[in-house]
């Protein structure tokens, strides 16, 4: 018997892994060549893509943010390795953000579809359109962040403190949510 749910889930998973892999590969290529950082970038990219694939196959959606974080770490390595005078790495941030967000959406969708619910064809198209729209919005938002950061050029103790407070709040939220027990 055909299992359209599983086919869709596999398709979304492959798309997610492919997008993540392509992003990681692009970042690795941009990085410093034949250095330990470059080699570390390859390892991170490989672990991210393989981990995401394994997690989606084994119905462990918790690996999605881990894979995204590894690709983000890859991007951080590129930024750390490249000279600050080269603007290419920073300019790629919106595209990386959009790709990560789209990969995350596809990964979560794949995990959702693995539960085996019958989906209406219209719902699938609507979801694809939504993911595309959110990815574009992510690119714009990240670009806005980069532009705003470059224009305002905030620095000093107060902005750093605000950033630390924001990050701590989100960290606290994550810990609280995890303590309440999340459901896949």
């Amino acid at each position: 018997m055909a299992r359209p749910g599983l086919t869709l889930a596999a398709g979304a998973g492959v798309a997610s892994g492919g997008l993540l892999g392509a992003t990681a590969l692009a970042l690795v290529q941009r990085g410093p060549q034949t250095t330990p950082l470059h080699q570390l970038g390859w390892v991170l990219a490989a672990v991210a893509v393989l981990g995401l694939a394994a997690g989606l196959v084994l119905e462990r959606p918790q690996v999605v943010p881990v894979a995204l974080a590894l690709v983000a770490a890859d991007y951080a390595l590129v930024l750390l390795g490249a000279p600050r005078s080269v603007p290419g790495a920073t300019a790629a941030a919106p595209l990386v953000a959009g790709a990560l967000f789209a990969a995350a959406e596809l990964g979560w969708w794949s995990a959702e579809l693995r539960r085996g619910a019958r989906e209406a064809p219209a719902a699938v198209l609507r979801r694809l359109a939504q993911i595309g729209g959110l990815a574009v919005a992510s690119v714009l938002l990240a670009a806005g962040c980069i532009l705003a950061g470059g224009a305002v050029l905030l620095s000093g103790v107060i902005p750093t403190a605000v950033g630390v407070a924001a990050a701590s709040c989100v960290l606290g939220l994550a810990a609280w949510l995890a303590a309440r027990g999340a459901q896949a």
Partner: protein
Amino acid sequence: MTRLAHRSTARLVGTAWLVAVLLLSGLALGLPELVALAAPFAVALAVGLARSPTPLVAVSVTLSADRAVEGDRVTARVQVASPRPLERVELTLHLPPAVTAAGSHRVAVRIGPGGSATAQLELTCRGWGAQRIGPVAVRARDRLGLVEHGGWAGGRVWLRVYPRPPRLHALLQPRRTLAHTGNQIARQRGDGIEFSDLRAFVPGDRVRRINWRVTARRGSPYVNLHHPERNTDVVLFLDSFRDARRDREGTLDLAVRAVFGLAAAHLGRRDRVGLIGFGGVLRWLTPGTGLTQLYRVVDALLDTEVVLSYAWKDLDVLPRRMLPPRAMVVALTPLLDPRAIRAVSDLAARGHDLAIIEVDPTGFAPAPTDRVERLAHRLWHLMREARRTELGLAGVPIATWAAGEPLDPVLAQLLGARRRRWRVPA
């Protein structure tokens, strides 16, 4: 309306961790680009948490038919309504093992503004019994899928699945019949259609009964004698103490189907049919006739199940009227429980017209794998053979019915065995 419980999803927790890690890394490493990567996830997190009021849903389950026969298909309609639009509502219809859904019993629907949605599931009735359909597990999530709400909603509906009776072309002939008109040819002589014998004319005989050919040949008047058509009492004895089962099929399923088929066939012949469910729970149905009795038998069968009991039971627990003296008793038993074996032996000892259909449990036993198991299996077969021989020596005709085989040859075997034992009264 059911208020669904709030649940955080793995996605929400994962997104929060990712945002926190990216923000802290960006701050620690002095890379604002990482903050830009975190921004879409942070906005999604904020929007998802801000727009997650607990939804109210009303769920109802209806079936296209509340009665079906094994193998039939029934359409279940699950209707879900909510005052608020819901992007994705996942409905999982709880089904008993004997009912399966084509494809999946889980359906995802979308509820538009102020509306409702209906999902249809094609159900296949794999096994007989009173099957409980529902309730429905509801999982609703917002557009971003960060917060999920879930719970059980909708009531339960009952689907009565009748066993599919085997096709029967011949039935057992009772040793004795009752006084009422039926379709059984009685062994006594009287008014009827079936020719029985000839005898010399005596005053009082009807002229229309004279056999003119024989009269002309013999030179003195002779009359035809006939067998009248009568009905009989048939008591179906169903042993539900034990059930040898593998996967979805068991000896009790076979026995219930056979009982249904026999009851329908005998009632079609205007016999009175009664039912004794002899097991952990004792059930009986006094002999009756007609379509109403068939429904009574079927309803009693639907509630039949194996109930574990260590209490000793024998025929004394049955009401006297359950076993009329002229009744034919057809027992369906796997001959696994000593209480049931003792009961059928008692029936034979009390002089009831008894026939046993042994529902063969050996096909449901796992195949022996080693020498010890093979030996045990062989011993078990020998013990069963000895039990059959004992019953045969007690004058009880017994025939074995294996899964997958038609019932007709078994009835024919019993019919032959019973004919050999009887002598037609002169």
